[in-house]
């Protein structure tokens, strides 16, 4: 279902985005006395976004008509659960990094992400644990100790 109306939905969203963007520009102040200020470009771009989004919506309706005439699409529904879970993992990774440090959060993230992506046949937990630990230690060592990229060391620091 989402597939069929996708253009209409995205077009409407972008239209709202364009309008919101345009309204935001009214709070921009001129700090210098030149011909055009900081609001000029954003206004132009937001107007264009609105215009193009209307095109997308119109095309979406045309396509809908076209699809109604033709046969129903057979699209296999993708599994969204792992996508959301991956995102949660990444966000958790980011949030915990300052307190737990790069090394620990990376190990945790790698393990769970690998576990999530693996098929049942390839899901060998001990192997994944070893790979997670080894690769995060290697990455941390190379960048933190060799190249002095100041990765968050967290509670280990």
């Amino acid at each position, binding site marked *: 279902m989402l597939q069929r109306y996708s253009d209409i939905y995205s077009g409407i969203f972008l239209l709202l985005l364009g309008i919101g963007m345009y309204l935001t520009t009214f709070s921009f102040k001129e700090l*210098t006395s030149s011909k055009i200020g900081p609001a000029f470009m954003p206004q132009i771009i937001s107007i264009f976004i609105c215009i193009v989004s209307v095109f997308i919506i119109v095309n979406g309706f045309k396509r809908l008509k076209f699809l109604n005439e033709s046969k129903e699409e057979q699209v296999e529904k993708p599994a969204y659960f792992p996508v959301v879970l991956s995102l949660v993992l990444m966000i958790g990774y980011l949030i915990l990094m300052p307190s737990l440090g790069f090394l*620990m959060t990376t190990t945790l993230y790698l393990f769970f992400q690998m576990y*999530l992506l693996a098929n*049942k046949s390839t899901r060998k937990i001990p192997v994944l644990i070893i790979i997670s630990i080894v690769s995060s230690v290697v990455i941390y060592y190379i960048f933190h100790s060799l190249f*002095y990229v*100041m990765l968050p060391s967290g*509670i280990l620091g």
Partner: protein
Amino acid sequence: MKGKISRSILIIAMLLLSVILGACSEKEASNQSAGKEGPKQTSEKSSYPSKPIQVIVPAGAGGDTDLNARLLGKYLEKELGQPIVISNVNGAGGSVGAKQVLDSNPDGYNVLFFHNSLLLNKILGLVDYSYDSFKLAGISLLDQGNTFIVNSKSKFKDLKDMIAYAKKNPGKVTIATEVGGFTHLQLKALEKDQGIKLNIVDVGSASEKITALMGNRVDIVPTSLGLVTDYIKSKKFRTLGIMAKDRVDLMPDVPTFIEQGANVSFEKFFFYGFPKETPDDVVEKFSKAVEKVVNNKEYIEEAKKSLVTPTYMNPQEAFDYIKETDEYYKELNSDQ
């Protein structure tokens, strides 16, 4: 159905691992906190620095702030016995990097290296912190070579020429700057002092200013003499003078603005600043190391090449000096 089973296995595994790691981390944390509050506090005094120190340069790699930081860092490393890591945190006129230091852990391993623009960002209302939000570790060097340069084919032989022309033709002299930057303030001061009107245009960073002057898009570029010595030697550009109070030993032939009748003087200063809560003894140790570097003959010799004057001011002197400067800038900016 199989999906459900694997999911429950996954959840169990997650729980198990987080419990194990959680236990580990708690142990680590308690060790750490015990160390921090207990005997470590005392040992920290003598042991600082025990790991690399991150110097945050709120400007891009390759600019003069970056180069000065790197050169100082090279010598500081020898004094402190730990690597000095220069991290460029670029953006928003330096306020991103400055903010990052303010928000960082005040353990002495995060320090800001910056110049006058810190004051300007506050004065222009872009940020709400300034030099007094930091615990200063002192000033390490001054750049007294703030100059105006022109193309060698320019009709202006010296500053007097330029001012005379600008008085007759208001808004006709095109002069490059970076709006809101240090050079912008210099131009405002000159306009105010001489009662002239210049066509001030933004062309961007120091190297973009040089490009604009080469392409004859602007008449004058205010910049730092150390950045353009090669262009002056090759007779592409000429200097109209420097904005120092007196002539500077590094460049004895260059007249000052004051000599030429314009009462405008500016010095660019470079300082180190720690977050406010950093222990005093740590800041003091760092400051002492800076002092040693600034008095190091080898360092002075190297710094000479970029026409900057290594000058050490201790935290108190630095604070007073910057405060005075800040008041002058505020005054310049108030009646534009």
